[in-house]
């Protein structure tokens, strides 16, 4: 159970403090690397980039100061607030754990969530209400300028599908195939992120295709143009895009919506 131990007094190993320094620095470098390689937006909402970047610099600074301390062999103060600490792990374990997590972060690249994640949810959930309240809600934009998420949010505010019949649509998203839909229907969706990847959830609209959906496999990114109509899907009347033109597009640099 909880072992109340001091790493330094337990093990005369002089490498342990250096392991600490390296582990903390590794996290600083990892976060900066994500930022510089444009991967940070796969992990967190852009509002918090500054916070995370400042933290990364903070981590590097701490690790730098500590390494100076170690380098100049300033003896560790024995009465450093010893009673403040709960050391859960045996000496060296905590640093190793942090370091291993960071190294894995360097090796395995974070991934954009795909349709499989979305399909773990019910279709009604994807097509249902978004959790977000429309924060930057612009109802008076022209219909064809609305994004997919704009549409879902508008629909949340005024859910009668018939109210939008005939309006022009031009939206982008990725393809989800669902068993509950007819073969000439697919779901065009985007993931919405509010804080970090832990809370991404898909939101989308059904699309009625002129052909079979097989030529648009799951996770393909599409730009769909068409008109709004109402269709009966999974037992409920739903706002549906009747597609006139469908164009495959590359995955956007920032695949998430906010």
């Amino acid at each position: 159970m909880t072992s109340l131990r001091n790493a330094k007094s337990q093990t005369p190993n002089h490498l342990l403090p250096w392991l600490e320094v390296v582990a903390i620095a590794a996290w600083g470098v990892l976060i900066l690397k994500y930022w510089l390689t444009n991967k940070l937006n796969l992990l967190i909402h852009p509002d918090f980039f500054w916070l995370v970047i400042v933290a990364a610099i903070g981590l590097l600074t701490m690790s730098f100061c500590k390494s100076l301390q170690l380098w100049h062999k300033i003896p560790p103060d024995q009465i450093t607030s010893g009673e403040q600490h709960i050391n859960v792990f045996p000496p060296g374990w905590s640093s190793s754990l942090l370091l291993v997590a960071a190294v894995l972060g360097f090796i395995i690249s974070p991934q954009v969530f795909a349709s499989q994640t979305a399909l773990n949810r019910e279709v009604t959930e994807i097509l249902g209400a978004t959790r977000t309240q429309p924060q930057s809600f612009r109802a008076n934009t022209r219909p064809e300028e609305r994004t997919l998420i704009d549409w879902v949010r508008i629909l949340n505010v005024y859910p009668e599908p018939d109210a939008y019949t005939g309006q022009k649509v031009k939206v982008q998203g990725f393809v989800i195939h669902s068993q509950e839909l007819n073969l000439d229907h697919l779901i065009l969706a985007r993931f919405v992120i509010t804080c970090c990847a832990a809370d991404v959830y898909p939101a989308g609209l059904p699309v009625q295709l002129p052909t079979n959906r097989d030529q648009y496999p799951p996770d393909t990114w599409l730009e769909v143009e068409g008109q709004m109509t109402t269709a009966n899907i999974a037992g409920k009347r739903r706002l549906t895009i009747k597609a006139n033109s469908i164009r495959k597009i590359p995955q956007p640099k920032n695949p998430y919506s906010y």
Partner: protein
Amino acid sequence: MMISQLNNGFTLFLSLLVEAMPFLLLGVLFSSLLLFFVEERKLVDIMPKNPFLGALFGSMIGFLFPVCECGNVPVARRLLMQGVPTSVAIGFLLAAPTINPIVIWATWTAFRDQPEIVVLRVVLSLSIATIIGFVFSFQKDITPYLQPQIARYLKFNPPAQTEPKTPQLQEQVTTPSPLLQSGTYILGGKAGISTRLSGNFSQTVVKTPNRTLIGKLGLVLDNAIQELRELGAIMVLGSAIAAAIQVLAPRDVILSLGAGPISSILTMLLLATVVSICSTVDSFFALSFASTFTSGSLLAFLVFGPMIDIKGVGLMLSVFKPKALFYLFALAGQLTLLFTLFLNLHIM
């Protein structure tokens, strides 16, 4: 599919860590700074004598000591030994990890779509901590609930006579073999440096009584790094558990547990007990359950989690007897269950 699921899980794991890191860093920096620059003695002097107000006051000291649950036990112990009423110390013990600016900010970051969670987390934590502190204040003689060492210390050193000149009441013995000296010791944070409780304090060897600012900053750095390392490692484990549950647990089980007003709360109370993730970052853990679990159960996790803490039990046992700890946790758990169940059934 398996690979992509694993990769999703890993992405989730990383995103929890990256988002939580700034708050953890801020938390350990603040608590380390305050440790060396705030004088608890001054606080003790202005504490209200009324038990209810005392409990409320104690619950809000967290605003001055933004410690998470790992730092609050030692501070609570010091407070108790400086003669602070039990209601204040218990209020502080239970509420300080939640009622502080960094934790509130982190919770807001995670749940800005549901501001009610942020507000209710503060209100519920404050209420429960105050109620429990108040309840304990009816115990006129608290000594049967304290560990004998502390009880004895309080008996022989009534607070009025032991006013220390320095904020740190208990200095740590750093002579090569402290156990050769007379007196009673309790296990502090570091083995080999036990804290001397009874006996003559004037004999205590203090290595560096007067520290320069630079020296203090050095200590702040050491303390911050040590906390960052320990809590960071716990955060890594916590995030791994959260990600694993999201990816590996059968979705229908999660859905059915999470949808029930009672089952969701009980599950979250259990998770709060098992996953002893730091309060500065636990809102991100809870966030990963936001789509499947009732809001009341998320609140139960956020309120109860910082109060109970498996990794802190060892340290808490250095203050309280097991019986007292049991009462504390049982009361806190029941109150959390009651409040959040009410919210689940009638409001959210």
